[in-house]
């Protein structure tokens, strides 16, 4: 990251892949030129494919999807011609570690789950299912295998699903925190989840099994609130580093009234004695006015799909709300646009910039 009076430049580095952006194109060409002197670089032009991530620019917007990666994964698992399903996980299935079915090939299972984990870059919808399946990586059975296959069939249906990043003028941050109380059938631990938005664009999410058993739903929700708080505080430090001003403290939304009230009322409840670290951590952040904890109706809770399997109807209405879109129409429009682009600008962008660098 480089920052001076008016010039702002970000350089993302992933081992040998670099992405550069900033507000002053002339400065960027200068940086690329200087880097080219130090290392032997290949200039690839406008970003379109980065770490298995397809980046498609649309009018004022950007569409992120991993359809190439999903296609490779389906090819690897021989699932290209499988039947589609419309939800990643069935509501009725109860996954347990030992369920009486025969064990299956754990090496292949692990390799598929590993491949699925990388998909969480653009697919918050499968985050819960992948996390759930990861809990059986050491001892998968036939049931777990069939759930993994169903997930691949869902991916086949939603291969063009991706994040549509919208143009917005203000930068306010909202985090939804949710928990599913005692949702794990093996040890009765809960699942905590959060999703963070920059205005309306989702930037960070997680679904995770809690490490201790919660005795009440408030306790489970409060733990997820603490996890969401630490992530939001980290994001705030990231925004600060990126010189992005956040106008007012981020909102942290939780659908449990008890947990919401506990975060700012200095009461000591005998039932909450054992989670004092989480309790004081969130309270401290709220008291210093870094965050604002608010209550949200369960119906408007956008992190719901990260804690439990949902019906396809409910899932799709939530996915629409969090800014996921089916990219098929976007890709079609893009294909139509390309010929008009090339007539206006005979030089492909890569060569265009190479000439700037040489000049």
């Amino acid at each position, binding site marked *: 990251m480089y920052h001076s009076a008016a010039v702002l430049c*970000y350089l993302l580095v992933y081992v040998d892949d670099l992405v550069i952006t900033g507000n002053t194109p002339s400065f960027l060409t200068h940086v690329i030129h200087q880097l080219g002197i130090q290392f032997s670089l290949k200039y690839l032009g406008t*970003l379109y494919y980065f770490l298995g991530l397809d*980046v498609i620019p649309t009018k004022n917007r950007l569409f*992120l999807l991993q359809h190439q990666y999903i296609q490779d994964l389906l090819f690897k698992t021989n699932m290209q011609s499988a039947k589609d399903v419309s939800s990643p996980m069935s509501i009725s299935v109860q996954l347990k570690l030992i369920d009486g079915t025969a064990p299956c090939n754990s090496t292949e299972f692990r390799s598929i789950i590993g491949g699925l984990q990388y998909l969480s*870059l653009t697919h918050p919808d499968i985050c819960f299912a992948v996390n759930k399946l990861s809990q059986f990586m050491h001892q998968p059975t036939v049931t777990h295998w069939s759930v993994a296959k169903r997930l691949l069939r869902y991916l086949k249906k939603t291969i063009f699903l991706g994040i549509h990043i919208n143009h917005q*003028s203000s930068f306010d941050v909202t985090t939804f925190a949710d928990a599913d109380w005692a949702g794990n059938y093996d040890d009765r631990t809960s699942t905590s989840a959060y999703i963070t938005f920059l205005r309306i664009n989702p*930037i960070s999410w997680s679904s995770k099994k809690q490490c201790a058993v919660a005795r009440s739903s408030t306790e489970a929700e409060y733990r997820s609130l603490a996890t969401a708080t630490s992530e939001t505080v980290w994001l705030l430090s990231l925004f600060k580093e990126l010189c992005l001003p956040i106008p007012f403290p981020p909102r942290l939304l939780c659908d449990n009234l008890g947990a919401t009230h506990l975060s700012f009322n200095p009461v000591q409840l005998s039932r909450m004695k054992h989670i004092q670290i989480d309790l004081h951590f969130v309270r401290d952040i709220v008291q210093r006015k870094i965050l604002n904890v608010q209550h949200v109706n369960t119906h408007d809770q956008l992190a719901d799909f990260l804690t439990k399997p949902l019906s396809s109807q409910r899932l799709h209405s939530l996915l629409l709300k969090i800014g996921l879109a089916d990219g098929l129409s976007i890709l079609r429009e893009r294909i139509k646009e390309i010929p008009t682009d090339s007539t206006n600008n005979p030089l492909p962008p890569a060569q265009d910039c190479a000439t700037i660098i040489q000049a």
Partner: protein
Amino acid sequence: MRHGTWELVPPPPDCQAVGCKWVFRVKRHPNGSITQFKARLVAKGYHQWPGLDYSETFSPVMKPATIRTVHTIVVMQGWSLWQLDVNNAFLHGNLHETVYMSQPLGFQDTTTPHHVCRLNKAIYVLKQVPRA
């Protein structure tokens, strides 16, 4: 050798040289025709001892949330995104530890066959490479 990756030295008495081998790959076009033959010299990283040949293996990479955040900022500010790729990225890294490697097969120096290569630059599969 040409890139200053290593220099030939007589083996020091307490030296444990890391083995190496050539890895050959054929790159093909989608239609099956051959694009290029690639040969890559890799070190046998599993010969290395922690504390002696390497200390830190952590390599800094970004979190997925950072990627999405930067993309979001780019859209909101209307900037453009450009992509670069470093050729032979791993061979650019300088090594902080002294690592000795036996001479590569087929390229031994006939006058000094018992010498070992003292590495100046990182080469593939050394433990500390992604960090360099």
